[in-house]
């Protein structure tokens, strides 16, 4: 068979060669892959920092890091993982690569802006590193709370500016995706025929667009305070430090939905494919996705229950927090119901998706414990919080990212990986994960605070146990990425649709040609209709 040339062989403008073909490309697929490598680099760095923190906490007395270094290490771990990994990972890598494919478009609407976003992302990361080596690593935690962030001598100004640049990149990506989904859908592809991953990236894009400017201005204010001493957050000058927290969380809470919504989109793609059954409640998932995007913007102050806001505000925000749990729960029920009477076909992506549902549900339920006004006072700023957000951010978004990477790897590179190693890696990762993060709930309830370089001796056994979990987890991650990278040794042999999926990205070759589709794809009335596949399978059996 005559294979169409993939985008790897054709640069986006004729005549580009070698590195130029990548660095000056406007092809959304190449840009997606460039994001992949940079994001993975930061993820690796962030994970190593995390492991360092855990190693420190494995013993009470023999300190690996000084208190100041420990503060710098957890700040860096947070900043890298949040701003350089979790926020961009799914939208910028998989969203970039797949949204145009899923809607039958040639590219995103603003291809050059897309490339600019990548450069801003890279520049933001580099700036953060420059800040680290010139003025000393910031020790404020990733939240940059005033007054400390204004007073500390470490390189906060430059780090905050780096985050500002990263925010700009994320915002422009969001702008690009919204315009793309509005203007570039293939003929006949209506809103309620869009694949759910595209829907979730679209909802995320709105949150990116509307929430990011708030953190942009908040971070600008920190810079202004540090340079000009205006005093907008300084009580001595009539300001109020609490307002910083409000502004910060007005972005940063919606930002956790920037992190989780695309993850939910991936899971919504994987469940129907491996259950060979249409997704349960397509419209409910769409409504829940948009509902989370809207409600998620109204719950920010639940990070501030003990900061001195009024009881009335606590009750209102607590109520809203419980409300936002509803659409998330709707999705979990939808995924689980999709499997009911389906024809389950087990493969690594599906295994990751199942782990996701388990871990995300645990993370979500512990979130409700914190959302309730009473218990929140008890567990605020303890390891319970650390456990909770690692369950949702890593157990949720991280696992969904891995699921998506394993699901679309053949589409990205035209190569399949070894299933056995993928399973083994996934089991190690999940087991290590639970060992690592679950004890944090217990420690938190017992009162172990977060962000301290040491702790009371009675917390030692569980901390030591967590450390072992962390090492198991890292070995799982290492195995998974080793396995994925090893697939590059073989030729590009993956089928166009190795999983028997139905959405448009599987109708083109793996990897896709330069402008995505050799012939314009035919759009189905419904994206998760497996009847044609079932007929084909039946016909094959008869022969």
């Amino acid at each position, binding site marked *: 068979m005559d294979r169409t040339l993939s985008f790897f062989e054709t640069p986006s403008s004729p005549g580009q060669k070698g590195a130029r073909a990548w660095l000056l490309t406007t092809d959304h697929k190449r840009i997606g892959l460039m994001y992949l490598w940079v994001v993975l680099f930061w993820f690796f760095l962030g994970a190593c920092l995390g492991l360092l923190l855990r190693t420190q906490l494995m013993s009470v007395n023999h300190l690996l890091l000084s208190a100041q270094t420990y503060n710098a290490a957890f700040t860096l771990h947070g900043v890298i993982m949040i701003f350089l990994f979790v926020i961009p990972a799914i939208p910028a890598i998989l969203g970039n690569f797949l949204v145009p494919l899923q809607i039958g478009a040639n590219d995103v*609407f603003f291809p050059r802006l897309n490339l600019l976003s990548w450069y801003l992302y890279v520049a933001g990361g580099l700036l953060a590193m420059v800040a680290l080596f010139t003025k000393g690593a910031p020790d404020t935690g990733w939240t940059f709370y005033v007054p400390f962030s204004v007073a500390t001598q470490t390189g906060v100004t430059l780090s905050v500016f780096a985050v500002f640049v990263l925010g700009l990149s994320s*915002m422009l990506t969001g*702008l690009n995706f919204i315009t793309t989904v*509005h203007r570039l859908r293939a003929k006949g592809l209506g809103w309620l025929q869009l694949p759910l991953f595209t829907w979730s990236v679209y909802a995320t894009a709105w949150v990116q667009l509307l929430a990011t400017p708030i953190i942009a201005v908040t971070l600008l204010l920190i810079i202004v305070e540090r340079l000009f001493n205006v*005093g907008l957050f300084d009580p001595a000058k*009539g300001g*109020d430090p609490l*307002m910083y927290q*409000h502004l910060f969380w*007005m972005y940063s809470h919606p930002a956790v939905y920037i992190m989780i919504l695309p993850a939910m989109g991936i899971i919504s793609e994987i469940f129907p494919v491996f259950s060979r059954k249409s997704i349960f409640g397509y419209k409910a998932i769409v409504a829940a996705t948009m509902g989370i995007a809207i409600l998620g913007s109204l719950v920010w102050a639940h990070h501030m229950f003990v900061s001195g806001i009024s009881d009335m505000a606590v009750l209102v925000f607590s109520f809203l927090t419980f409300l936002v749990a509803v659409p998330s729960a709707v999705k979990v029920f939808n995924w689980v119901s999709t499997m009911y009477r389906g024809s389950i076909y087990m493969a690594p992506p599906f295994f990751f998706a199942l782990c996701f549902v388990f871990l995300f549900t645990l993370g979500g339920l512990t979130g409700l414990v914190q959302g309730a006004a009473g218990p929140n006072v008890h567990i605020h700023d303890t390891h319970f919080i650390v456990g909770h957000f690692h369950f949702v951010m890593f157990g949720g978004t991280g696992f969904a990212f891995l699921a998506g990477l394993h699901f679309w790897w053949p589409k990205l590179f035209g190569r399949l990986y070894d299933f056995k190693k993928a399973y083994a890696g996934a089991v190690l990762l999940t087991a290590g994960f639970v060992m690592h993060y679950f004890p944090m709930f217990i420690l938190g309830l017992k009162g172990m605070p977060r962000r301290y370089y040491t702790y009371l001796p009675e917390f030692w056994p569980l901390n030591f146990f967590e450390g072992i979990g962390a090492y198991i987890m890292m070995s799982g991650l290492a195995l998974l990425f080793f396995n994925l990278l090893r697939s590059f040794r073989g030729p590009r042999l993956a089928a166009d649709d190795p999983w028997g999926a139905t959405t448009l990205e599987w109708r083109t070759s793996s990897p896709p040609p330069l402008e995505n589709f050799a012939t314009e794809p035919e759009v189905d009335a419904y994206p998760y209709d497996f009847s044609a596949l079932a007929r084909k399978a039946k016909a094959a059996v008869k022969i």
Partner: protein
Amino acid sequence: MHANTDNEGSRLGMWLFLYTEIMLFGGLFVLYAVYYNRYPGEFSAAGRELELAKGALNTGLLLLSSFTAAASIETLRKGAKRAALGLLGSTVLLGLVFLFNKYLEWSHKFAHDIFPGSDTLLKGPKGETVFYGLYFTLTGLHALHVFLGCAVLSACWVLVLKGRVTGERMNLLENTGLYWHLVDIVWIFLFPLFYLIL
């Protein structure tokens, strides 16, 4: 790369960008609302200290510049390139006069020892310190936007002159016009919030 001929799409992108600008200023407006609620008397006392005449003049200048920006787009659409260039040029000029005016206002305040962290402000009532903190931050951020707007408008002027932006291909100019109107409308809110508080 596909040729981007979908004007409506690029307009949509521009509108989305304008939303982000509104949210950017929105964060500061939230601060204003909270602090005004806390110090209403001191805010209006400090507001009376500002130079109303200069503020009003600047409002007039920006409104006029919005008109010339819109008019330049319409004249270019009708093919009158010279008139369009004149109108566009006067938009930039009005913007620059606005900035100059703002500079005079700020330096007056500086001369009276009113600037962030100055002794007069530190000794005065807290509400006034916050008022001036917001005043300098918000008008400063706005001035930055006026400056950027002038830069982009000047770039458009050159492109119109060179015939790269014409009546048939005026996407860039139209979007720049939208941006300029945003800069204008932000000022329309800033003016009463700082100069006209009762």
